């Protein structure tokens, strides 16, 4: 559905995105994560047709990003919600429906349905008088006003309370289940982990990790085993923790090796745990490595 090939974007002498290549399948929820200034927003805005790449290509449904036909099948939610605060939510959404050539009757029905799903009340209230969460819901409804095939959500829950955040994450999951292709960027990696099928991790304009969460974990060490013992051995990485020594090893053979050595040295194994790294841990690990470079 989305093909990005050798994408590069420069601002003056600054390279925001460097030779980025990835693809997103139809119906997939695709996560783009990375620290501030990694090039996430530039990548998403390029897909939305807002930014012209310096080099490389970005296509959506086979059409170049930025093409009017692409815009018609795309819903973009920027990180900030710059709404027309003097308008009511309904008038605002109807205006954008008009821009997307949605027939008036269809638009009204769709707007009402979307706002119902988003549980947005006070639809005739001026947007300027709404809370931040309500405004975000209006912004999401605007991104859906043309019933797009592809949704690009840049930090959809940025600055919102946990309740609204969970609501929006769940709503995104519903959209995915309804067959929409979603490209999703968030600082809260727990949300990315919970709804994304595949992820790219960006740092300094480069993609430093990619794939499904399992693949990324595999590439960054995968599942590890923590062997807690009363004495330290030379196997694995040993760290003192809560009065015991934690040995981190990568497979069961190593676990056996630790156990034997502990017994040899007169100690005993207190506990053995498997550990699956979260996306956040991988992200922090990657970020540290990139910073060290």
């Amino acid at each position, binding site marked *: 559905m989305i093909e990005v090939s050798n994408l590069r974007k420069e601002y003056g002498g600054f390279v925001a995105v460097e030779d980025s290549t990835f693809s997103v399948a139809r119906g997939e929820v695709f996560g783009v994560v990375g620290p501030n200034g990694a090039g996430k927003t530039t990548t998403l805005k390029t897909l939305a047709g*807002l930014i012209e790449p310096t080099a490389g290509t970005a296509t959506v449904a086979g059409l170049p990003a930025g093409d009017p036909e692409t815009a018609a099948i795309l819903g973009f939610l920027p990180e900030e919600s710059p709404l027309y605060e003097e308008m009511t939510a309904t008038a605002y959404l109807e205006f954008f429906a008009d821009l*997307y050539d949605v027939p008036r009757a269809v638009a009204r029905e769709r707007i009402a349905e979307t706002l119902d799903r988003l549980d947005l009340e006070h639809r005739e209230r001026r947007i300027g008088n709404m809370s931040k969460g309500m405004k975000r819901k209006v912004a999401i409804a605007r991104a859906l006003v043309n019933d797009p095939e592809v949704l690009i959500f840049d930090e959809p829950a940025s600055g919102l309370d946990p309740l609204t955040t969970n609501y929006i994450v769940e709503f995104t999951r519903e959209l995915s289940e309804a067959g929409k292709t979603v490209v999703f960027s968030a600082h809260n990696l727990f949300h990315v982990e919970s709804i994304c099928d595949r992820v790219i991790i960006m740092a300094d304009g480069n993609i430093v990790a990619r794939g499904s969460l399992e693949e990324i974990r595999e590439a960054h060490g995968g599942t590890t085993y923590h062997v807690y013992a009363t004495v330290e051995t030379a196997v694995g990485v040993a760290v003192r923790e809560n009065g015991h020594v934690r040995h981190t090893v990568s497979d069961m053979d190593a676990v056996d090796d630790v156990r034997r050595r502990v017994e040899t040295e007169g100690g005993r194994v207190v506990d053995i745990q498997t550990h699956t790294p979260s996306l956040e841990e991988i992200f922090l690990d990657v970020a540290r490595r990139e910073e060290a470079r």
Partner: protein
Amino acid sequence: MRLRRIGRIARWEVTKGAGTLDRKTVFALVVLALLVGVVGVSAFDDGGGLEDGIYVVGVDAESAEGDPYRQVVAASPEFRLEETTITAFRLGESDADVFVGGPRLLESDGSTKGDAAYAAFRDAIERYNYESMLAEPDEAAAFPVTVSVQYQERAPASADGSGSGDASSGGFDGSGAEGGAGSGGAPDGASSGSGEGGGLGIPDVGGGLGERIEAGTPSALSPPFPFGPLILAFLFVVPMNFVIQAYGSTILDERIKRRGELLLVSPASRYEIVAGKTLPYLLGLVAIVVVLAVALEGGVLSVLGALPIALVFLAATFVGAMLARSFKELTFVTVAISVFMTTYTFVPAIFTEVTAIALISPLTIVVMDLQGESVTLGQYLFSTGPFYLVAAVLFLLGIGLYREEDMFAQKAIPAKVVDALVSRLHGYRSVPLLSILFVPFVFVGQLLAVALLFPAPEALALPLLLVFAAAIEELAKSIHVYAGIARSRFDASLRTALVLGVLSGGGFFVGEKLTHAVQFVGLPDLPAGQVVFGQALTSDPLLVLALFLVPLVVHATTATISAIGASYGRTQYAAAFVLATLLHAGYNLGVILLVV
């Protein structure tokens, strides 16, 4: 572009904030507008009546009803009559500020107001006498001396500062009031126009074209200065200064609050967005202009003369709002546009009856229309064509900036200008095209220079014009080439610079030929015009062809010099630009020397 979508954006632009006004505010605004309109029209029509009855004139109670002083009081609204006696007046038992009685008695009560009333009453007597003479059936008896006055076109100042006029060269005849709409000038030279037909009259100080016979005193003579129509034409420009404030704000608002981002991701193109956002303001201005034209008894020509001014106002404001980084900067930009545009349109129009240079301003077309003069198609195109083209190019450049990277980023203004130019560069073919598109700017700039410098001594004006004319042309030929190289649209090789220079120079040569429109109005007859626009040197066809092609060689050469400089960097471009300008100015000087 889809008209339906443009219309939808235009409707939204008008209505999006409409709901924020409550009924009371709307009512108050309507009442205020009506009040301003009524007071304005009333003040224009009769001076507002603020001085009506301000002075009390004491007249002897025993004087006859036909006493001419009573007539003077009756004819002058600033006076109120009180019947009294000289004794009562002198004892302060009367409200009168002055007392008149008998043929020689006109006396102030000694107060400041009384002295003012005394002076005003003397003027009123003179005015009354003059009007009585005008009403005299035997004109020869009233004005026994006849003076023929012939106005001559002003000759430009020569090098020694002396000017000369040639009566046979088509000077303007006629003096004093124009026939038709108004009556003759008053003795003090002030306007006393009283229109016909119930509309607002066009005061008629100054003469129109053609010969007229007018009765009056020497002090009533005035040069052919279309004061009244000029002031009325100025009314067409006034609302534009206000409308651009709102227009500039709405454009900048989209940028500052990043609201335009969501419009940009919609299927609406940036052309449609800008057209939709601009349309309400343009239509609003057109509506105001139409209402003014009807109220001032102007015709379609007044509207057609004001339209290109409105377009340039909006286009310049649009570009300004795209370049400004804050509302503070926007205020500076809009004020600069107001001052420049008002000056550019108003000052030349002052010379409507004097010189063809006046036609560089479309406001002159409005003045001519309000005076009832006819305008040829050539004059109209000459006057308005550059404005239409400048507006179109400004909008195109501004739309080039109507994109995420320029709208929402805090870029330096020169960088944005370069971006705007680069947005119009799509390969080599864009280079000559842009050179052609910049010709209207060159034309307007050179016309403005001619207008500003034509009263100056030739010894000063001609060298300045030589350099300025060359510089502005070199800028038009090279700035987009520099932008293209600076933004890597073209590689910075010598070969590419040569190609770009030749293409730009060639394009400019083609565009420059369009300036032959000036032949319609004879501007090159002026020495200053010759410097800028040149004139025929020979009738030999081969020589004519050679001379026709020489400018092509010059343009290509100088544009190439600038292009080569641009390929080495900004500083080198600046140096090459200066060199190209000097070469070009030298060529211009050679042409002038050949002519003279």
